[in-house]
């Protein structure tokens, strides 16, 4: 039973005495000539019944505390978790169970020799233990790779070697979410071991939800999460744990001029029935690097032209390619120039299949794919058809695929509905400003100021307008003394779904143009500002003392 009968040992003498008194009193009232103080009736009838009743009373008290929301909320710690789960299940609330964090680590070794890291090898890092769930064999050449668990050892520029394996935290919980670069050490011998570090942030670690945390979600869960109106769609999305922190959501539907997918009939009217959800999951886009096999397609006077493609799972909803470089390239290499960018879409395995008939509709959605070409200026010649691996860095808005799959899923999708999640159309912003600082005032921390400006711009929802005064306000509040801000130069670069670049520039305000035929408007396009694109210069001035 969820709330089982307490063991008789758990029942106190006082509780039993009280139950015994009640039993004896009732029996005496019903049968006045029956001896209830001691003796056979007391021992056989009253005693047993009293202990059971006392235990049952405890059981009922727990039931009572755990079966109504008011008492559960008053003191969650007193409530039985399983009973609380039953009560909250009526509101479609389910307790989240904990998960162990996972991630890849890079193991650096001193010699180029085959190494096996056995199953169950434990690495300690960040105060947590992580374990291999399979045996991984590091091979000295790719030709020796025969299994999924084989890894190729790569030479590093400093003469050491490295390979990558996945680890899983031994314990569930967020403590296992170590950050990229966290050092790890094996608790058993790994031959030629030099060092190990987290290749990327560990992910997926979560704690089992406490009753208090579960209750905290109640407020956001009880309101309708559905497709009734635009706020409900946002609530539906953010009601899911993984999307709680999604920054901005804009829902485009029937009679919105940006909605193009409901105009596919020969009747020239908006027929409705389509929803486009523009999502900005975080302040600024994320860069995702990965190795891609590229094919040489031609050569020209600048070098060799290579082609690669991104499928819909590589960087779902990606904006553009920021860098293409060889794996051995140094970090300061800017990358080769992209000379060809053609988008397409792939509806394989989509369920339900969204009504997409043009590529433009699919751009920035989780179904977007792309074919790209770049010129490798360091390789002047080659054979058409030959392949090589390059590291591709894509710029994208995270969670687009996850949110689409969630909203389209059977448990959340709208009956007869057709919904498409897209990354907010990007307007990449650059801000240039000169700070006028008196000679007597120390220089401000520019990194802090850049971050403050970026945070301010990125916190705007879908405003359509970005005023220089908003930037000035942020900077001025951060400056001290007589320091001030000169005129601000705002630059915007909109990458439209139709692959057209629109440039905006103003010292006062940049405004998202209203181009609904291209789905561009203030409701679909977001200002995205990287702190590095906040260009601040300091001008020292002598201010007259008054």
């Amino acid at each position, binding site marked *: 039973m969820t709330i089982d009968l307490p063991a*008789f*040992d758990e*029942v106190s*003498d006082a509780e*039993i*005495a009280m139950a*015994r008194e009640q039993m004896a009193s009732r029996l005496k009232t019903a049968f*006045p*000539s*029956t*001896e209830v*103080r*001691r*003796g*056979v*009736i007391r*021992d*056989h009838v009253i*005693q047993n019944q*009293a*202990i059971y009743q*006392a235990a049952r009373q405890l059981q009922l008290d727990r039931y009572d505390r755990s079966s109504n929301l008011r008492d559960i909320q008053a003191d969650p710690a007193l409530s039985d978790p399983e009973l609380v789960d039953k009560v909250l299940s009526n509101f479609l609330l389910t307790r989240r169970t904990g998960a162990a964090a996972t991630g890849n680590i890079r193991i650096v070794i001193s010699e180029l020799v085959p190494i096996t890291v056995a199953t169950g090898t434990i690495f300690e890092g960040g105060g947590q233990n992580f374990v291999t769930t399979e045996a991984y064999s590091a091979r000295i050449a790719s030709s020796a790779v025969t299994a999924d668990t084989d890894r190729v050892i790569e030479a590093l520029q400093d003469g050491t070697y490295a390979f990558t394996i996945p680890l899983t935290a031994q314990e569930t919980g967020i403590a296992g979410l170590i950050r990229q670069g966290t050092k790890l050490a094996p608790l058993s011998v790994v031959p030629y071991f030099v060092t190990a570090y987290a290749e990327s942030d560990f992910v997926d670690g979560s704690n089992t939800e406490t009753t208090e945390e579960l209750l905290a979600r109640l407020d956001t869960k009880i309101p309708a999460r559905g497709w009734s109106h635009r706020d409900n769609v946002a609530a539906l999305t953010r009601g899911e744990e993984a999307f709680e922190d999604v920054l901005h959501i804009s829902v485009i539907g029937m009679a919105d001029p940006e909605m193009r997918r409901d105009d596919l009939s020969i009747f020239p009217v908006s027929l409705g029935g389509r929803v486009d959800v523009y999502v900005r999951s975080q302040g600024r886009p994320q860069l995702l690097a990965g190795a891609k096999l590229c094919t040489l397609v031609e050569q020209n006077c600048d070098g060799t032209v290579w082609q690669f493609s991104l499928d819909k799972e590589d960087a779902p909803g990606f904006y553009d390619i920021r860098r293409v470089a060889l794996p051995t390239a140094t970090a300061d290499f800017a990358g080769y120039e992209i000379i060809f960018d053609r988008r397409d879409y792939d509806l394989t395995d989509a369920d339900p299949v969204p009504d997409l008939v043009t590529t433009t509709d699919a751009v920035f959605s989780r179904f977007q794919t792309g074919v790209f070409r770049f010129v490798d200026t360091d390789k002047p010649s080659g054979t058409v058809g030959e392949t090589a691996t390059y590291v591709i860095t894509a710029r994208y808005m995270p969670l687009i695929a996850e949110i689409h799959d969630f909203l389209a899923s059977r448990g959340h999708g709208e009956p007869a509905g057709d919904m498409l999640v897209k990354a907010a159309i990007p307007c990449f912003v650059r801000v240039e400003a000169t700070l006028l600082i008196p000679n007597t005032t120390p220089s401000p921390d520019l990194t802090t100021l850049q971050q403050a400006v970026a945070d301010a711009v990125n916190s705007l929802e879908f405003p359509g307008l970005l005023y220089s005064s908003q930037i000035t306000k942020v900077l001025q509040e951060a400056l001290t003394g007589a320091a001030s801000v000169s005129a601000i130069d705002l630059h915007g670069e909109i990458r439209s779904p139709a692959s057209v670049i629109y440039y905006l520039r103003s010292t006062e305000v940049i405004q998202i143009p209203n181009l609904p035929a291209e789905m561009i408007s203030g409701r679909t396009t977001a200002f995205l500002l990287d702190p590095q694109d906040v260009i601040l210069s300091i001008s020292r001035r002598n201010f007259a003392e008054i």
Partner: protein
Amino acid sequence: MSTVVDYRGYVTDVFAFEGVKRDGMQRLTYAMFSSSSAGLLCAGVQKLAQWFLLELFTPAGSMQGLPNYGTDFLKEVRSGQLQSELDVFTSFYLAAGTVKSHLQAEELETDPLDERIGSIELTGVTFEDGKITLRTTIGSAAGTVHPILVPIGVTP
């Protein structure tokens, strides 16, 4: 045999022994009913004696929720600690005193005199065949004294 009239004004308990007769000494067995009897009620000094024996032979603290009920007498008998008559007398009177004090504490003004504890005496002890037989008397506040012969198995 008692009649219903005999119990008028008494509060009765189920008798935990079988074989009782109206007069004289009888050997009783522990049973609440049998194939020939649907059970008996008891009152008066019989109930008093039953109360006394039940508590005397209940190990102290063995009834949940009644931590003070019972004595250590049976435990001492069965542990082999009681090797002589003197040992038995000492242990018995200690236990009987405890029971008596409990009974007196629970007495009500309305209780008949023959259901109120008067005296408890151990008049003799016999050791035989792994058994200790106690010759006791129990007296009520009404002034009557009744002998009880109690055989106790030494091994549990």
